[in-house]
């Protein structure tokens, strides 16, 4: 399940299930489609996600690229306490997609670069 919120000109998506090879492709399509509405930044808040595997990481990188091509932007929120921090480090996720510890940081960060 993914819930959506709009803050300023950013859309905040909050998935809650594990992201893995079983559902990564479906989530990618859901997120890509969600941006066809007005806001042009997608803030993906992974605060409720307890697990992401390499297929999920691959999806984030692909989605970031797709949004760039559409001149919008993907930023990812991973709270400091999240088990996902370690995975993001191992695969060097920030090199591909901007990662912020809080939604507020992400809103400020994406606005400053937007």
């Amino acid at each position, binding site marked *: 399940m993914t819930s959506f919120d709009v803050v300023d000109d950013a859309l905040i998506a909050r998935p809650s299930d*594990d992201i893995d090879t*079983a559902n990564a492709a479906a989530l990618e399509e859901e997120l890509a489609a969600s941006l066809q509405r007005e806001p042009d930044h997608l803030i993906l808040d992974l605060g409720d996600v307890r697990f992401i*595997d*390499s*297929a999920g*990481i*691959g999806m984030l990188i692909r989605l970031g690229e797709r949004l760039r091509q559409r001149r919008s932007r993907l930023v990812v929120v991973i709270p400091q306490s999240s088990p996902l921090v*370690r995975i993001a480090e*191992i*695969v060097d996720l920030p090199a591909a997609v901007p990662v912020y510890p809080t939604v507020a940081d992400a809103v400020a960060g994406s606005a400053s670069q937007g």
Partner: protein
Amino acid sequence: MSQEVEVQGSASPGSRLERLQSVADSSLGYLSLEDMLGELLDRIRGALEADTAALLLLDEDRGVLVARAARGLEEEVRQGVQIPLARGFAGRIAAEGQPRIIDDLSTADVVNPILRQRGIRSMVGVPVHVEGRVIGVMHVGSLQRRDFVEEDVTLLQFAADRIALAIDNARLSEQRAVTEVMQRTLLPDALPVIPGLRFSAKYLPAGAGIRMGGDWYDVYPLADGRVTCVVGDVVGRGALAASVMAEIRAALRAYLHEGHEPAQAMELLNNLLVAMGRERCATVAMMQLDLETSEMLAVSAGHPPAVLVTPDGQAHLVEPRHGLLLGIKKDVRFYSHRFRFPVGSVLLLYTDGLIERRDESLDEGLERLAGAALDAARRDEDSFADRVYRALVGQAATDDDIALLAIEWLPLGPSLEMTLEAKPTVLAGLRRTLGRWLGGRGVDEDSTFDITLATSEAAGNSIEHAYGAREGRVSVNAEVDEAEIRVTVADHGRWRDPRPSGRGRGLMMMRGLVDSVEVDRGSGGTSVTLTKRRTGGR
């Protein structure tokens, strides 16, 4: 009219025996049903020196007689003539279950226009019986006016009895085939494989498996790791009950899949049944197990209580606040009842055919059931469902269907062995089970997370690369000792070389999460062994 005179005087003893023999001929039994019907109609027509012979069978659902086979009246079958019950010649024979003679058709009440068009003057007809029920009508007709006599009726009835037997046999084997197909389609052919849980089930249609009943069971694992078990009973028998059962089963799965809680799913299902106007009610027991909290959520719609055997060797009846049967009225509220389902427990769901005996009360039946469940929990041969079934039913023929489903939660031992279907949807369950097991072995949270994710990656690799779209199995074995945690993921395929941007990342993640990753590409398959030291991990 010399023929008329001949016919009336035809009942000489010698010819009577011959006539009887022509109909009784045992070689008829070797013909197919179609050929046998035609041959028998020919013979009865010859034996009674009649011009026409016809067989109509009763369609019980629609209350009409339908022409099934005919001689001299073939158009009756071709046109699919239907005679309403209790009307006309054949209709009355079927309704009253008595033979009938018409001496002169021109003055009689006849529904079927073909009889008149064909110019039939006199007729005799008899009911076709199976076990006291009328299943059809057989009649012969004469173009000349004649008076059929008692002896003609007797001979015709004799032929009708033979036909009844042949048709009943053919119907039985047809119904058995249909029942078998329906059961295979409607009942889960394989119970899900969920590590730590053992399912066993039994389904027995009543009366030697001839009529499909409305009992069913189902196990439905949800994406979040909860497992829903359902047993239900649609009131009534036959194809309609079975089809309502199939609808209920599909609808329940859909509601659960959409994320509805059990009580809510039950409410939606009830409204659906009422709205569809199926005029069939059903009792349903639904139990949802949450492996993470060791809790079971129970909802009942008029279903008998489930039996819970706890690890301390006690049997309890699980009686959630009883909701009304499904399909009776709209907007009924259902309530769920939460109870502990600790490791080592067994839950038994069943339909009333398992315990109902004519000579005892429901309480006595439940007492016997609880005893059988306790006894089954102490034994180990066959499956739990088999043991309970044997104790309560055994060889006795039952007049009601029986469905039973047992869910056992087995303790996880010092090593964990799992065999999983090679499809991506098993990964979430694998992670949860492994996480639960590692936690139970005293492994700290961070190490549990790392090894679980690395295992998920390795298994994902097996599923994606080794098998592709083909079916297969992946086995996962885990061991923990004081020094380290070892997990081996093995398959029977061959890994393709990792793509640089895709699964290469998986291998990178595995290496980052555990201390060693050994990949063994053998001829029989690929195995990956992940090892993580227990102290000073990071």
